[in-house]
């Protein structure tokens, strides 16, 4: 939170997502490649089987004419063999070297490679330089001497066109699949890490004092962490409580001997000096005691409220007793709904000290009023006494200033109030009251 806090390592979400993205891309790439390869293989096989079928039907329909030459009695039926340079060609090489060619070949010829393999397909470049797949076979006809070499060619472009279309579809499909998987991964990460976020929220609540321990139900992987955290918190709370108790015991333990010293100094020759020192010690003790109590009660404050009106009336009853001789009128002008966001003891401390101070200085009247809105509570204590010089009041209002240092004679109580209010994040200000005396105003934030 402060000081040596280093930049956090890459987030868990990023790690999980990067990991998932790597295998996702790999799987999609390999899958795509295999599918393309398989598709191309299938389509090429199919293509060569078609060429083979054409070749067979060509051979079947070949006949020798009366003059002993070879002829195809009718066209192969496919108009593409008639279309010039359509990519679909046939060629019959007779033993005498003459060629019968499809019309589509026009004046070019297919390149013949001597080969023993029968039947045979291979790739060659066509008359336009386009890649062709060729099915070829040597046959013998009863009336013709020598081998007749029959070839049928089809454009590989048709194959690659199909493959290209397939690839396009495949890419779109795999892309959509990948996108879907990314979304699924993100959802999974969010869902999977939700208990951690819940823990963070829980811890924030602990830090703000709303709760003293992690109270959520956590999955068994991080439950030990929550338990360990609770252990630390409990240990911490115990340490703080013990330290606070020690401060309290020390402070209270010191007061009785101090009372004895204070009683004895009456006889001493330097009794004014000694008395002053006793007073300094008392102030120090009260100051640190008040601070320790204020800090300790800062935790676990959320959700706790104390009724302002009732508390003020109780204190007024006590002060009426203490200041009976002054015959003071203590007005409590507080709506019953007004509530102090914190422990009753703290409210008693704030109101008690302010009201006691007001009673001490008042001539006849003390007025306590309070108002609250959505996020503020304002407590005002006024008296009709002599008040405070303006510059002293301004100085006293300044936050964090040790009140007892600047306003000696105005009592330790106001300093304790300052400390308490400061710890709760509020402020105290002192101005002149319409009643004529001091107007102490405490402004507190409501959670």
């Amino acid at each position, binding site marked *: 939170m402060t000081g040596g806090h280093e930049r956090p390592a890459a987030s868990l979400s990023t790690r999980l997502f990067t990991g998932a993205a790597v295998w996702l891309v790999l799987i999609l790439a390999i899958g795509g490649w295999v599918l393309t390869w398989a598709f191309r293989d299938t389509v090429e096989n199919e293509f060569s089987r078609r060429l083979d079928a054409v070749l067979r039907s060509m051979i079947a329909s070949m006949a020798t004419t009366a003059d002993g030459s070879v002829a195809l009695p009718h066209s192969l039926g496919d108009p593409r063999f008639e279309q010039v340079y359509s990519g679909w060609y046939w060629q019959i090489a007779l033993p005498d070297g003459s060629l019968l060619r499809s019309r589509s070949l026009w004046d070019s010829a297919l390149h013949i490679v001597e080969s023993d393999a029968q039947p045979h397909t291979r790739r060659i470049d066509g008359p336009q330089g386009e890649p062709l797949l060729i099915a070829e076979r040597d046959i013998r006809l009863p009336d013709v001497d020598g081998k007749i070499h029959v070839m049928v060619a089809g454009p590989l472009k048709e194959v690659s066109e199909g493959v290209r279309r397939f690839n396009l579809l495949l890419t779109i499909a795999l892309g959509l699949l990948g996108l879907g998987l990314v979304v699924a991964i993100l959802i999974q990460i969010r869902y999977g890490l939700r208990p951690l976020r819940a823990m963070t929220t829980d811890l924030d609540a602990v830090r703000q004092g709303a709760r003293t321990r992690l109270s959520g139900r956590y999955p068994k992987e991080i439950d030990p962490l929550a338990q360990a955290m609770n252990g630390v918190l409990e240990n911490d709370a115990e340490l703080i409580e013990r330290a606070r108790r020690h401060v309290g015991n020390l402070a209270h333990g010191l*007061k009785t001997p101090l009372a*004895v010293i204070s009683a004895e100094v009456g006889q001493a020759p330097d009794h004014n000096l000694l008395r002053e020192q*006793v007073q300094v010690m008392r102030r120090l003790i009260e100051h640190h005691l008040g601070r320790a109590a204020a800090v300790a009660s800062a935790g676990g404050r959320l959700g706790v409220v104390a009724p302002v009106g009732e508390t003020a009336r109780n204190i007024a009853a006590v002060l009426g*007793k203490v200041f009976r001789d002054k015959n003071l009128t203590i007005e409590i002008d507080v709506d019953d709904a007004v509530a102090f966001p914190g422990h009753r003891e703290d409210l*008693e401390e704030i109101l008690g000290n302010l009201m006691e101070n007001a009673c001490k200085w008042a001539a006849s009247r003390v007025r306590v009023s309070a108002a609250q809105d959505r996020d503020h509570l304002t407590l005002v204590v006024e008296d009709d006494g002599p008040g405070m010089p303006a510059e002293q009041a301004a100085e006293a209002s300044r936050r964090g200033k040790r009140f007892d240092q600047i306003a000696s004679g105005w009592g330790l109580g106001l300093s304790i109030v300052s400390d308490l209010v400061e710890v709760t994040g509020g402020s105290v200000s002192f101005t002149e009251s319409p009643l004529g005396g001091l107007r102490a105003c405490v402004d507190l934030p409501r959670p």
Partner: protein
Amino acid sequence: MRVLIVEDEAALASRLRQVLETAGFAVDVAHDGEDGWHLGDTEPYDAVVLDLGLPRIDGVTILGRWREAGRTMPVLILTARSRWSEKMAGFNAGADDYLVKPFEMEEVIYRLRALIRRASGHAQPELTCGALRLDTNSGRINLDGVPIQLTAQEFRILSYLMHHPDQIVSRTEFSEHVYDRHFDLDSNSLEVLLGRIRKKIGAGYIQTVRGQGYKLAEPEA
């Protein structure tokens, strides 16, 4: 005026006793809660100085028991605990005033005198009877504006009478409120003391009511 001090710290208790006796009180001291509770329950004190942190029974409990039993003497609490919530607990148990340690001895005396004066129904710090005037803040008695020199015992008797003017104060009441519990008052010495006081303030103020006791009243002109 007779007060009880319940304080477990011996040094503080003895210093308090000394200071209060000097200021004109008859003082009894108890050093633990049980003793203190018992004394407060059985003896008629005009006021009690009660420490809250006591061994055996704590101060708030003692105070609660006294009030429950109908003991109404004013109680001044002495404590190291200074939080308002702790003060409230003391007042709710029936305390009349509250002092946080360490305190000034003068403050204890001042508060005790005020408590005693109020308990006997006087709102003003000055009690008067004719030309007699008792300033309860300073503990001085004047006659026509002139301070009267009184011994401690004389002062206690006159001060008690001035707190209860026009009332008959019996011999028993004197022995209960003017002397601590170890003192045995015999009838002669009380007569002697009253005689001396009459000599200093004039014979008219203190009347003897035969068979019943004594009464302070404005002398008839």
